[in-house]
């Protein structure tokens, strides 16, 4: 029981979120909380399944960032079959994210 975290580009996001449960982390390489959140997501990924976790570089995908109305990093958006279910801004602890994704 584990999932792989993958880095995606803005061009891939629509296809990825279209079906199933997907958690997207809009992150920046220049942000301490983003680095920490990366470790939290890795920890979460070890113990779940039935969910995709994707990382999207905020600075390299400005168009996508704007399209999804993301105003800061890190921002987590949880999608189910293409629909946004919930979003959280800032560094989050593991139990909070587990609650968000219903794990």
């Amino acid at each position, binding site marked *: 029981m584990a999932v792989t975290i993958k880095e995606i580009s803005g061009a891939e996001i629509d296809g990825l979120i279209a079906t199933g449960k997907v958690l997207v982390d809009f992150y*920046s*390489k*220049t*942000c*301490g*909380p983003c*680095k*920490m959140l990366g*470790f*939290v997501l890795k*920890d979460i990924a070890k113990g779940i399944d039935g969910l995709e976790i994707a990382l999207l570089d905020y600075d390299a995908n400005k168009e996508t960032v704007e399209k999804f109305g993301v*105003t*800061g990093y890190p921002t987590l958006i949880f999608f189910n079959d293409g629909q946004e279910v919930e979003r*959280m*801004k*800032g*560094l989050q*602890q*593991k*139990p909070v994210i587990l609650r968000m994704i219903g794990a």
Partner: protein
Amino acid sequence: MTVKVKYFDHVITEQLRAEEAFLAEYRKAGYSFAKPYVKLNPYLIAPLTAIIIFQTAQPTTVAITVKGKEAAGDIKFQFAAATEHMIPVYGLYADYSNQVELVLANGEKSVVTIQTEPAPEKVKLPTKMTTTPEYFGDNMMFVGPTSPALAAAYDYRGDCRWYGTLNHAFDIKRAKNGRLLLGTQRLLMPPYHTTGIYEMGMIGKIYKEFRLPGGYHHDQFEMEDGNLLILTQDPPRGTVEDMLVLVDRKTGAILKTWDYQQVLPQNVGGSGSQDSHDWFHNNAVWYDKKTDSLTLSGRHQDAIINIDYDSGKLNWIIGDPGNWPQELVDKYFFKPVGKGDFDWQYEQHACLVCPDGDIMCFDNGHWRSKFKEKYVPAKDNFSRGVRYRIDTEKMEIEQVWQYGKERGAEFFSTYICNVEYYDEGHYMVHSGGIGTFKGETCNKPPVQFRGDDEKHVVFNSITVELKDDAVVYEMHLPANYYRAEKLKLYCAEDTLTLGRGEMLGSLGVTEEFLTIPPTEDGGMVPEKYNVKFGIEEDRILFKATFEKGQMVLLQLEGATTHSYFVPTTKRPFLAMCVGTFQESDERAVEFPVGKEGLAGEFKLSVIVDDYKYETGVTVKI
């Protein structure tokens, strides 16, 4: 390298030691009314105060006159009959040979000379003062700084007659027991949230610190029973300035909490300064007994809201309804009526309820629109004190008074400020956040300019009092001041009580981070991080210098291990209401860990990105 560790006593402990020392000094020698014991600045933080101690054989009243530089500047007070006399002296001038006259009931007189030190540069002097001693009497205008300056009080001439040396933030109010309620100088989290409220005598003695887990910001209000309404937040949930608590005056315990997230949507009606972190920016609270309700100012929704005290249910909203959902507009917003001039308030401060139910506030007017394309630049804008009459049955609002619009940009403050209601037609309007950058009126709080830009900022603060629309007082100070508060130095209820002050309430248990990243052993922490620890009675302060974006965790390792995420990415604070806590080095990080919930001996280490470093510091809790 050796990591620096400094142990700090709480100011309450330092003051107890100072008090014991001056009492011992007094008892050692034979002081008398003719030659009394005099101690300048007895409680260490109010240099223009003193205490005079002596005994008399028979109980007698003592009349004190702190002589002014001219007769109108004399400050007089009479103390009740006693044989042991501990006479607080207020209203001394800095860098001056002050004459203090004491007269007993039998007419016997003694004159004491008290020489004071020059005031530090941070005690600003007025650049303009217009009033008369007949109007202002022995009142003082107290101001608390938001730019580099100190809290101070000025008389009718503009002479400074009191100042405090602690970095007090936000409002200074007098409680019914005569003491001052003001924010502590102990930073809990950037940019200005401190541990709580001090209850302090005018002499500078701190009798109580009311500590809160979420800290204090902006405002406090004393209820009829003495309990305190204090503005706070719940930091772990990632938002600020959106909670209010009622605090027990005797114990410091939180008795009731109001959470505005349960009352308002967070993503509507935003002002030009709103972000998701500081979505409401509550900067004032007022309890109204007649309606048993709380009136709250939310700068970042351009809204003054009123909620029921018991249920917390929303009653009404004063504000421009633009960008609010129609169902909320229909239910809670007012419709302007009347033939006179009417403007909504924007990014307002210091709401209050007048005795007849009218609502007053300081309308900063920052942005002055709900729509970005209509934002008004500072140079064309205005700030003012405003009074609205509201009809909560018909949901109608009328502007019945304002002062400031006619002064235009010279009176414009993007942030802070207050109004005071003294009586019908008698008000104070304090525009304390004025600033220019390179000669242009600031479009953002002047304290937000950093680095080289700071040199091009000119601060100003204008405090005006009006009686029937005539200006009867105007003071200009070359700094920014959160609020102004007119008080007398002497107050019969503010009696000096000996003994240790109390630290009440709780800072709570600091939130630990549950995920620990993999690291390599980095040995001793490199000098470049400039790591220091300050050990306070109730907290461990971690100070260091990191580059933006570094990932940092502080660890306390003992029988149990505790890890804390230390933010290094500076949030662009859109409402830097108090800039006095800002470090000159923007990379500087200060992070407090409360001692509550910790016991034993702990080794302190730091994780920076991929490495874990030793600090060589061990603390016992």
